[in-house]
């Protein structure tokens, strides 16, 4: 399909055509009629939940950050699994309001925030305590392209910043037909930032540098994740690009699913070295 900036009407028609075919096939196999009303509802809710999640992530630009990435992992999973549901979209709106309140009251996710970083790809799930270890230095991971954009729908805002994508409903578009719903769903998903870097590492590098600048980061921690080759592909090249943009980068090897491929002691030693390089000592 290619990256979103090269999306053409023909390519979009191809994806929409595939979805039409799939519906026809499902009707034939199950013997049930496809419910277009539910489809339209699901597309509207998916656009709403993914845009609101991006809004939540955008609020993390605040200093101090209202959310830390370890907490975001618990929240993003709802959108990963059920982004089309009304419940998740409603929950994200409630979350957004709460995070807004935290920002307005200066409530920080991490006590003594004095260093902001982002990570990349899925973390080593069995060792999320490394995020708590970073906090001993006053270091917070404010998120990552992964947590922001695996679910979040983003767009360029008039002031040049990255922000939540305007939903069809917010644009005053009323979805009335199956084809219209499928077309919006296809275009919405093909635009997702997390998919772009499968086509070339430069897309990911550009987005990561953008996050590093807009979220006011002091450094970047890249996980060479042997458990997800797709998201890790090109990460060494991302590292060079981010460094060239002036941000210190540390890498650590691991595996999101196989704990045998993660060396906790060595990773902690790397964190210590990285923090030392950033001029940070542990907070007593």
């Amino acid at each position: 399909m290619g990256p979103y900036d090269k999306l053409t009407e023909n390519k979009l028609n191809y994806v929409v055509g595939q979805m039409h075919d799939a519906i026809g096939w499902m009707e034939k196999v199950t013997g049930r009629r496809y419910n277009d009303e539910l489809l339209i509802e699901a597309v509207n809710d998916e656009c709403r939940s993914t845009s609101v999640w991006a809004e939540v992530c955008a609020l993390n630009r605040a200093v101090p950050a209202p959310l830390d990435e370890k907490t975001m992992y618990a929240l993003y999973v709802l959108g990963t699994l059920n982004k089309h549901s009304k419940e998740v979209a409603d929950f994200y709106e409630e979350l957004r309001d709460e995070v807004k309140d935290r920002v307005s009251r200066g409530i920080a996710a991490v006590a003594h925030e004095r260093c902001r970083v982002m990570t990349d790809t899925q973390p080593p799930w069995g060792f999320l305590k490394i995020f708590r270890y970073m906090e001993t230095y006053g270091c917070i991971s404010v998120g990552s392209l992964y947590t922001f954009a695996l679910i979040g729908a983003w767009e360029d805002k008039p002031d040049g910043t990255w922000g939540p994508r305007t939903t069809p409903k917010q644009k005053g578009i009323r979805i009335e037909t199956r084809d219209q719903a499928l077309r919006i769903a296809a275009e919405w998903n093909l635009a997702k930032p997390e998919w772009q870097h499968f086509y070339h590492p430069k897309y990911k590098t550009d987005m990561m540098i953008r996050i590093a600048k807009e979220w006011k980061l002091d450094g970047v921690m890249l996980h060479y994740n042997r458990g997800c080759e797709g998201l890790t592909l090109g990460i060494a090249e991302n590292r060079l690009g981010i460094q060239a943009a002036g941000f210190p980068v540390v890498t650590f090897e691991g595996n999101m699913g196989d704990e045998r491929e993660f060396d906790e002691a060595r990773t902690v030693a790397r964190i210590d070295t990285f923090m030392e390089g950033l001029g940070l000592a542990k907070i007593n």
Partner: protein
Amino acid sequence: MISAGIDVGAKNVKVVLLRDGAVVARGLEMIGLNTQAAIDGAFAAALAQSGAGRGEITKITATGAGRKEVQFAGGELTEVGASAKGVHHLFSSARTAIDVGAEEGRAIKLDEKGKVQDFAINEKCAAGAGAFTEAMARALEVGVEEMGELSLRSRTAVPMNAQCAVFAESEVVSLIHAKTPKEDIARAVHDAIADRIVSMARRIGIEKDVVLVGGLARNTGFVDSIKRTLAIDVLVPEYPEYAAALGAALHAAAQTGGQ
């Protein structure tokens, strides 16, 4: 005013005592089963060499993988930070430091002030560190201290294909059975380590001057392999294994407000 740097590595404890910016004593002890005893022993050896009493040591900084074991240290520094400090003190022209110890190899990129710009550390594999040379010396039935001189006598490069220390040992055994001269095998071992270390160092970008420190820098055969692999000269200090301890001592001295 004397400050001390203690480097608790994977195999040895190294101690450097510094008075007014000059090294006055060094101490080294191998870590056996009792790390604490090795720390105390190396520290006592350095004190004895300096002639100073324990009370004269005003500040102590610990570094190395076992730095937490130095309970009497007032501060600590990571291995990368300590190596960088030590190397910059020894060679202010250094922009790349390569530190190869018993268990770990590190490459550090420095700026003109000695600040760490970037670093790379070998992953969970001993194939790029001193422990590998020791294992291969055992397979060759020679002392590890003989490996350097032995490999310098080699006239034939023998490729070693295994990427893992365990498989490399099997390969060495095969070479022995094939009646390959020991000196060629020794060189192959050093070339294999140098390949891995240089490949890791290239990730951070190699910039001159390159300084080689750590215990393996004592091995002349390995130094030769590194020079050939990099195709540039490398600087090796007189006491390369003490570079990190020196860095720690400098850090301690800075805490006292002077060197």
